[in-house]
């Protein structure tokens, strides 16, 4: 049976940690608008071609209103972050969304990120020192990849990094589509909401120089600011987004570069390739997670196929990033590829707000690792790297390394 006739399970099972499933190329070639069955049992439409994914992510008719009554649920337990009520409090489109985006976006400009570089570098060096002291082999994910972005986002939001274990758990319940029961998810979200509410009350009483204090200082909607509930949800969303995404990408990036050590050696010989190498690992991340779901409010055509109103579409940016019609030698890792218009941060008005932060963190980590641990290598064969299962954002369980 061809992919055109069967209903694929999605996410597509994949035994390898870093390689794409064979189905991607077949879907792009012969079935670019595919029926898939989600973990909930609900059906959705999967897009894998670059042009289609790019078009849909930039088209406001494809909304993020995954809480609509007839939208597909991602998992039996509801679907975590995508189906959550939380997603509806931040404006989805139009001027209201742009207003929110610009109020928050000022904190994530390239210049602000450049100003954070020295402190990020110092954190990375400290974490590497600690990892080296514990002896080899070490887990680069637990020792560096995970803590670094958490320290940075906690600092930006003015929340204590000492509470990071709780944030990690709350993030995980929002982002893990299969691990937790509905009761566990609700309890965790209740605690998280209360924590952020208390944190904002403390910031109101005693403002700091952090993002949340400044959002409060702008005033309410009548003053051009955000409603209290929007500030609260923005804080929760940034804390979650600042956690799993870059944290997992650090481990995947280093694994991809060490999987063929000639890549690492090329970067040692020419560190000016760090920027384009980071982009190329983002493009080729075959374990990027679920992709981006969208809910269609009106009938629309994609790649010549009519999608009825009420369709839930899943955009696989990772599959699109390997589309030969968009990238020359798309399956090859070219550390100097330029331009590299990959879709790993999405595209259009909703593309990742924190992308300059993520890029800067990835560049800093790579720069410090090349300088401090030039002999770095994987401590296990690539085949033994294992994926984290069930997470909306893909990652590796551990990244064992020697140096």
């Amino acid at each position, binding site marked *: 049976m061809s992919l055109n006739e069967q209903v694929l399970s999605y996410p597509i099972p994949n035994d390898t940690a870093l390689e794409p499933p064979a189905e991607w190329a077949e879907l792009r070639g012969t079935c670019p608008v595919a029926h898939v069955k989600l973990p909930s049992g609900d059906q959705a439409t999967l897009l894998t071609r670059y042009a289609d994914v790019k078009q849909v992510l930039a088209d406001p008719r494809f909304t993020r209103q995954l809480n609509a009554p007839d939208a597909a649920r991602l998992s039996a337990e509801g679907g975590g972050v995508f189906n959550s009520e939380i997603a509806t409090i931040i404006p989805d489109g139009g001027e209201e969304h742009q207003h929110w985006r*610009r109020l928050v976006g*000022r904190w*994530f*400009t*390239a*210049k602000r990120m450049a100003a954070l570089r020295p402190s990020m570098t110092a954190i990375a060096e400290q974490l590497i020192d600690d990892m080296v002291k514990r002896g080899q082999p070490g887990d680069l994910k637990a020792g560096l990849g995970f803590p670094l972005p958490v320290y940075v986002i906690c600092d930006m939001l003015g929340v204590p990094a000492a509470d990071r274990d709780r944030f990690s758990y709350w993030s995980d319940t929002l982002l893990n589509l299969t691990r937790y029961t509905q009761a566990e998810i609700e309890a965790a979200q209740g605690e998280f909401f209360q924590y952020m509410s208390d944190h904002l009350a403390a910031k109101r009483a005693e403002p700091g120089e952090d993002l949340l204090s400044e959002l409060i200082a702008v005033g309410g909607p009548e003053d051009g600011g955000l409603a209290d509930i929007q500030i609260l949800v923005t804080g929760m969303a940034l804390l979650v987004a600042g956690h799993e995404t870059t944290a997992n990408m650090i481990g995947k990036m280093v694994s991809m570069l060490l999987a063929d050590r000639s890549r690492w050696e090329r970067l040692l010989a020419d560190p000016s390739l760090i920027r384009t190498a980071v982009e190329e690992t983002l493009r080729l991340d075959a374990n990027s997670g679920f992709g981006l779901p969208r809910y269609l409010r009106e009938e629309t055509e994609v790649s010549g196929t009519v999608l009825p109103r009420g369709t839930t579409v899943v955009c696989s940016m990772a599959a699109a990033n390997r589309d030969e019609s968009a990238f020359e030698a798309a399956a090859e890792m070219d550390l100097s590829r330029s*331009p590299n218009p990959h879709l790993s*941060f999405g595209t259009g008005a909703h593309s990742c707000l924190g*992308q300059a932060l993520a890029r800067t963190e990835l560049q800093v980590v790579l720069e410090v690792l090349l300088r401090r641990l030039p002999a770095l290598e994987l401590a296990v064969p690539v085949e033994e790297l294992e994926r984290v299962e069930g997470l909306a954002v893909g990652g590796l369980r551990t990244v064992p390394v020697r140096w």
Partner: protein
Amino acid sequence: MKVTVDEDKCCGAGQCVLIAPEVFDQREDDGVVILLEPEPGADQHVLVREAAAVCPAAAIEVSEEA
């Protein structure tokens, strides 16, 4: 080379500033693009083309006519 930017489309991703900081900047109060150099010199052309190609909002237009 002539460069134009669309402030309404701009989503503040900052890619242009990371790639070509001599040609692009972002406003401090909302992250929207500022065009520093509408007719950049030849040494900037490769970077400007890259910035335009990867802008997630397609907010940068490059005209190659002198």
